[in-house]
């Protein structure tokens, strides 16, 4: 059909089709605008990095930072892969006491932010903590301080909070990927081990790579937790350059380094995924059958699961509760002063504004696509989902860069002082950065709901004379309400948990719950930090409980062999 004479006669039509498809210009423009808004911080960092490529203003010690970052990523990568994939294999391939409960409880550590687990971990293991005190009691006072505040400590804490990403991906892959292929391998004479190594593992590789990529991105984003451990990654460098010494150029140069790391992670994921992208899903097969364990091996399996769960979630929560209770007993006024209410309301209002903004933008984008956007519009919508993968330091510095650009532009056209946003540091910046980061999960949830609306429904509404706005409010919105609800909750929770972006961008005197926890914990005020920490963990359990349902659903489909 490409040789049709009409093609030559209508180059404009072809351009139009590429840009807009059969969509509506105004709605398509909205998508492009959102994409631009989300992409501009990254573009800002990338462009200033390129502009200064000849003489980057990197602070001394940058080499050590890069090395530390690499070691941290390597350690957390290996740790999460071993823990995540190992536990997934354990609960999928074997039957042992508490297996069913553990299979979904093991997702729970996802609700424990690293900056909370980090300080609980330190309080317990640091020189003055119960562990080393007890050790000295046994071995005598000559025992020097153990190196807890170290790279190793940071790796352990990040591994314990991030392994569920790999766990979830691996488990879904083991259970859902081509049970037919597994069955075929078994009928061809492969035993369980060989079928796993030769069939399941290669098929699961893309999923493992995806989980690992998520872990790497989260590791790159973090610059709060690692500071407990005196670990100086490049992201920490960005934070210190900006907040510590206000050296914009160094901050930008370091942020572009972080960006490089992120690009490398994405490239690595592609590489690991390799040609396995078209891995078949589903199919009618029994798949992996669970083998019952007994005696010592069963006990070992159960213990392994319980120990991970205890270390990553249960014990820290117990510790937080006991601190909170102790703190409240001793001096309720000190824990529950007016600052608590103030910080809580800051957290909640920022989260609420961001949730509404992200959901509205996502609705608009999904609606525009439904009206028939072209390839460019679809590409733009896709672009907005990358925001989630961009490390916080890059988003933060990028937002500042965008504000600086806006200032320059406004001053050039005669507005004295520009927006003034850069000078003051501003809540607007936090909101902007949050939107960049959280539009992706909101859009995915809304889009999933949209995909369940059959296309003819939209077309019927249009042909019955409804304008696009009416189609949105009367047809699409009522039908995607579940997706909107999920999106709102996800963003609310993510925003309450978020720490690095606020730390980087907050104006003087603006503190959220997460920042408060971090400040108190940094100064070893464990008891005071406990209650807000518990509040954050409780809130964060919400979406994890949502994940439980999926894990359980997956579990129902597998059975004992």
């Amino acid at each position: 059909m490409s040789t049709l004479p009409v093609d030559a006669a209508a180059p404009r039509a072809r351009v139009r089709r590429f840009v807009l498809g059969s969509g509506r210009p105004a709605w398509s423009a909205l998508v492009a605008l959102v994409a631009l808004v989300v992409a501009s911080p990254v573009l800002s960092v990338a462009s200033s990095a390129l502009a200064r490529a000849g003489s980057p203003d990197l602070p001394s010690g940058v080499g050590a930072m890069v090395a530390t970052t690499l070691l941290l990523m390597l350690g957390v990568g290996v740790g999460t892969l071993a823990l995540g994939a190992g536990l997934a294999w354990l609960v999928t391939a074997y039957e042992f006491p508490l297996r069913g409960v553990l299979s979904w409880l093991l997702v729970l550590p996802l609700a424990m932010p690293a900056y909370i687990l980090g300080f609980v971990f330190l309080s317990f293991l640091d020189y003055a903590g119960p562990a080393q005190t007890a050790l000295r009691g046994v071995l005598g006072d000559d025992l020097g301080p153990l190196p807890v505040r170290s790279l190793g400590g940071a790796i352990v804490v990040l591994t314990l909070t991030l392994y569920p990403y790999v766990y979830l991906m691996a488990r879904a892959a083991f259970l859902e990927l081509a049970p037919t292929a597994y069955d075929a391998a078994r009928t061809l004479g492969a035993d369980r081990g060989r079928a796993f190594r030769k069939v399941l593992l290669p098929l699961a590789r893309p999923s493992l790579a995806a989980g690992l990529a998520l872990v790497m991105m989260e590791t790159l984003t973090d610059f709060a937790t690692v500071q407990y451990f005196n670990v100086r990654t490049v992201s920490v460098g960005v934070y210190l350059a900006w907040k510590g010494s206000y050296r914009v150029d160094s901050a930008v140069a370091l942020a572009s380094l972080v960006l490089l790391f992120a690009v490398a992670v994405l490239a690595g994921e592609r590489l690991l995924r390799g040609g396995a992208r078209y891995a078949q899903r589903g199919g009618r097969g029994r798949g992996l059958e669970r083998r019952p364990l007994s005696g010592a091996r069963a006990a070992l399996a159960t213990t392994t699961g319980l120990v991970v769960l205890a270390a990553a979630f249960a014990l820290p929560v117990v510790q937080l509760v006991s601190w909170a209770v102790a703190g409240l007993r001793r001096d309720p006024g000190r824990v529950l002063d007016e600052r608590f209410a103030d910080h809580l309301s800051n957290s909640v209002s920022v989260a609420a504004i961001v949730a509404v903004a992200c959901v509205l933008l996502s609705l608009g984008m999904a609606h525009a696509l439904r009206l028939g956007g072209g390839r460019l519009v679809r590409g733009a919508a896709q672009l907005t989902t990358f925001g989630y993968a961009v490390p916080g330091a890059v988003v933060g510095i990028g937002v500042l860069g965008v504000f600086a650009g806006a200032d320059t532009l406004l001053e050039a056209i005669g507005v004295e002082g520009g927006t003034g946003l850069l000078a003051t540091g501003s809540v607007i910046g936090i909101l902007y950065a949050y939107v960049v980061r959280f539009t992706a999960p909101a859009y995915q949830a809304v889009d999933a709901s949209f995909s369940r609306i059959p296309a003819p429904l939209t077309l019927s509404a249009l042909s019955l004379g409804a304008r696009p706005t009416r189609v949105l409010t009367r047809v699409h919105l009522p039908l995607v309400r579940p997706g909107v609800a999920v999106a709102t909750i996800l963003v609310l929770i993510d925003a309450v948990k978020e720490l690095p972006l606020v730390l980087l961008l907050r104006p003087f005197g603006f503190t959220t719950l997460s920042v408060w926890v971090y400040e108190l914990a940094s100064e070893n005020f464990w008891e005071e930090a406990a209650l807000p920490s518990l509040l954050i963990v409780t809130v964060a359990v919400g979406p994890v409980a949502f994940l439980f349902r999926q894990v359980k659903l997956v579990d129902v489909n597998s059975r004992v062999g």
Partner: protein
Amino acid sequence: MTSALTLTQVSKSYGGRDADPAVRGVSLDVSPGELLTVIGPSGCGKSTLLRLVAGLERPDAGRIEIEGRAVAGDGAWRPPEGRRVGLVFQDHALFPHLTVARNVAFGLDRLPRKERAARVAQALERVGLAHVADRHPHELSGGEQQRVALARALAPGPAVVLLDEPFSSLDENLRAKVRTDTLALLRESGSAAILVTHDQTEALALGDRVAVMRDGVLEQVAEPATVYEEPVNRFVATFMGEADFLPAHVHDALLTSEIGVVSTVPGWGGTDLDVEVMLRPHEVALEVDPDATSRVVAVEYHGAFVLHTVRLGSGATLRSWQQHGVRHPAGTPVAVSVVPGARPVLLSGEVALSAPPEAARRL
């Protein structure tokens, strides 16, 4: 009288290397009140044609007019909501969150409340579903859903109603009834209608005219009997019913082939030409004849008729409908002839001949 719908040289390609079919240079005229059925193999572009008329796709070239007003082409563009086109989908596409009455009212939102309610009641009355007005679509049967979809599409009084395989999601035994009802409602509404189908019986039985489409091109647009009896080419001949082809020869208005004299061809005097003759099973007569070289090779019982497949001496096969009760078992030698009065279609290559070609006359 203005046409309800006019397409002039409309083309649409999905560009790139997409395998999607295009619509190529389609011109079509539908009168008010007319029902046109569009039929073709899957991927022939019939759905694209509907989408172009509805305004869900923009044509690359050509012009579309609805009731004399340009809606696409030559710089004109009207979005779907401004076209007065009704759509009925295969899966009905009822809004699941709205009641039946609100579904029907959806296209009437510009009317005052009272009038709207009256129109909804009237529309539901017409399809005999007034009693389910307050139910939701999922509480209705497939046939009822289909009627609601039709009532909804007709309620705003569209100039053209487009029906995209509206019966294919219904059970076989329900389909005939719904088809009859739909036809009556369309007639009553007075709207022009285009009905896309892949079922040739449906196309022939429902349409005032039938449009046969292949590879984005309209091969033939004509009344059902014409499309069936005088197909313009081999594709239309085979697509619109069973057809077998035999090499044949016309000499001085007499058509002969392996089975002997087929028929006379009036107006072909003085012609001497090799052709192919198309024979439909109802045109082929059989008679048991122990001396015949033709043999019955297969018998299929279809209820009212029995389909016999016969292999001729040359190896060519013909099919023949025989009355219920006639049954020649496989292996029976039969003499094959053409029923008296039949006017078989002649083909030269892929194209049907309606008159002797000039070149053949001089021979």
